[in-house]
């Protein structure tokens, strides 16, 4: 894997400069629904297509950002600071 990923602070870099942070998930607000809790903890959508995910620029600015990437082609549609994806 050598695709280029743009850090909102530092610009385009090869993907091995980053640590992958997984899909953007939504944390349940309580433990009432055990199924929802375990789903949040252990299941991921794993879409073949556009995915919203977290990245950490470990070799660079060491800040977190979010990206929307096509998991089939590694085309990155957008990047943004956390919470900024449109």
């Amino acid at each position: 894997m050598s695709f280029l990923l743009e850090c909102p602070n530092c610009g385009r870099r090869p993907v091995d400069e980053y640590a992958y942070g997984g899909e953007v998930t939504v944390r349940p607000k309580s433990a009432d629904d055990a199924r929802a809790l375990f789903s949040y903890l252990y299941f991921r959508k794993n879409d073949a297509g556009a995915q919203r995910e977290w990245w950490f620029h470990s070799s660079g600015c060491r800040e977190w950002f979010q990206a929307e990437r096509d998991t089939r082609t590694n085309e990155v549609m957008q990047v943004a600071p956390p919470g900024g994806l449109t």
Partner: protein
Amino acid sequence: MNRLAERRGELIDRGRTVTFTWRGKTVEGLAGDSVASALYADGVRVFSRSFKYHRPRGLLCCSGQCPNCLVQVDGDPAVRACMTPIEEGMRVEHINAWPSLERDALHALASATPAFGMQVGFYYKTFMRPRWAWKYYEKFLRSAAGLGKLDPQHRRDRRYEKVHRHVDVLVIGGGESGLEAAIAAAREGRDTALVEEGLALGGRLAFTGVDAAARAAELAAAAREAGVEILQPAWAGGVYEGNLVPVYQGDTMFRFRAGEIVLATGLIEQPLVFAGNDLPGVMLASGVRRLVNQFRIATGDEAVVLTVDDLGIEAACDLAEAGVTVSAVVDTREGETDERLGVCGIEHLRGFRPVEARGRGHVSSVVVARGGERRSLSTDLVVMSGGTVAQFGALVQAGGSVHYDAARRVYVPDHVPAGVRVAGEPAGTAAEVPACADGGRGKQFVCYCEDVTTKDVNLSVKEGFASLELSKRYTTVTMGPCQGKMCHRNSGLVIARELGVDPDEQRVGVTTARPPHNPTSFSLLAGRGYEPVKRTSVHHWHADRGGKMLWAGDWKRPYDYGAPDDETAAVHESLGLIDVSTLGKLIVRGPDAAAFLERVYPNRYGDMKLARVRYGIVCGDDGSILDDGTVARLSETEFYVTTTSSGAGGMEQWFTWWNAVWGMDCQIVNVTSAIAAFNLAGPNARTALAGLTDFDLENEAFPYLGAGHAEVAGVPCLLLRIGFVGELGYEIHCPAAAGEHLWEALMAAGEGFSVKPFGLEPQRVLRLEKMHVIVGQDTNAESQPLEAGMPWIVKLDKENDWIGRYSIEWYQNRGNRTSLVGFEGGNGAVPKEGAQVVVNGEPVGRVTSSRFSRRLGKAIGIAWVPADLSAEGTPITLSDPSGATIPASVTLRAFYDPDQERLRS
């Protein structure tokens, strides 16, 4: 052999000879010769033996596409002789023949036995019985297989460089189209580089005559003038994501990142398939023309050209002009004699197809047929002009695709991805390539690399492998060093004929061309060897005094200084000093710092007083233990967090991620690097330290779990009274730049107390005596605090939500199924770490830590046991990997100083 007259376009320097050896014999060539051309000029016709059948093979393509001239050069295997310029003193050896190229024992064997007839898929059908004989078969097969020899003792004595390059435009292919594209890009002001694999720029222009050579020179000069960076000879290994293209030149890999890639990879001439088409002396027209035009070698006395299109006619005229006698052009197309041939007096046999090339070890005649008419032509050089195909490997690797154009009978680019452009002739010639005529005896080779014949391919189709992708996996066609360059088209045609269909991708398909484009040595891929290593500020002091510096994650740390038992004893009896600079250290500061910590940790931190330090664990949202460490409060809004050494980076990411999610008014700064840390421990720790500082170390002023700022030996420090090793001790944090100075001062102050530096192994024993858990050793990815023996750390009554809360509440409701407990060995035997806890012989748990404690005189350890066996004093049975059964009993309180009297003194 004398060379032909000097002419524009030649690569040789007639004034300079170069001497090298071929199989031990001295050969003289000219500067500019390739290994292949120098040997051919010297009369060599057999260059190698084929992979499976060990048939003699001669030059075929002279352009690095086929496997026939693979040789070993100065110990490097799989070198293409036709692409390698000769150098003074080079030692060239043949490969894949024993004992010699002339007499290869395996050739006889391959022809003799039916099992060794090695038809396609033979390894699925033979060498099965008798089963006991397999180990003999295997030994023989191993030595027979492979191309070339690797010397297992060989040490890399050459430097392999990797150079990163960034360009706006990278042109792959230095033929006419590539040069034109590069010139245009450079003239637009774009950073442009061009890569050409051949021994000269120009592609086909370089070997198709004087006018073509002049055009090549003109383009090359224009490119240089325009500022194009030219890498030649050099080759692109493949196209990777993000327009990454490794370009190999000698011992250097250039890692290019290109804004745009222009593919001008050109065409490859294809062989024709007929019986005996692998005999030495049967060559591609472009190969012969290279020998004649670039190296000025008169190839053959009596040549016959086999052709499917006009390129063969051009080749014949070129050769005739160079003084080679061409007796006939055998043209598969019907029609009248071409006037160009008429002028040269060359017979034009139209409508004839090849039947068989004949000869013993070298071609001596070729049989052709037209309907019922057969002709046998005497010849020592059969020139195949079998049509051309485009090289699409790079386009497909870049994410593009090709489709079959039935009307033109060629594959053409379909999808070309953004950032890539195709220049030049992306399609190849659209000649119709008929099958050879019947009646030829002997093997018809489709794949030279893997010795696959039409019979093999047809058999695979009959057996059900009815497409190129399937047949490939069964016959190994296209899987050799050429990766389909010489055989993809022909194998597709053979399959199509066997199936009775058009050779398009619906039925026949294309294979995927994978990098590298040519054989590549691992050394070139590896480049210079270097491995980042983290060293503390005291590293060399440790090493100088016998510290066994071992890897601990990314760090080098002393395992011990040669006497771990003495080091352990020193800490108990007097004084020891250990370097714990590798600990992760984070500053958490800001108005929301306390609130942040309350949300991250299951324990309480918001109520911490100033100048105190507290142990804590970090859990994941699933309740599992991720890391442990301490938190010291430096002010209302400033906290100093330590983590495990290997967890430092992960905890920084964990903390900053949650901070990004919650958006609290809080900063997290990783200061692991900035601070050295040492643990001075032992009954004399206070006395020794007092000699270096004015800070009041008395127990009332600075009790256990206190934190304070002190100047020690002139160095500003943070002192933490914390006790991983169980004796009175101080963890001393200071700027890394002052680390070695402080360490030396501490050792000097401790001299009167026989201070010993102690390493990781003594530290492990000491912490085990205190039953202190090591995260990642005693815990695993599923361990949660309730079962791991630390329910007291989890403050379920905290009002705020915290990471892992829901999961731990769920675990609490469920109850513990397993428990992390200490144990003492019943008979002093120390079970290995990893030994099982067994009940009635069944494994129910596992030993995670174990040692023999000299201080206590017994074997101690930590293990996971079922919850119903976790009461104090419960007898348990351990099954050691050695086979021994070891009785033990559960201990819940620390083995040593369980009431912490020494720690709190």
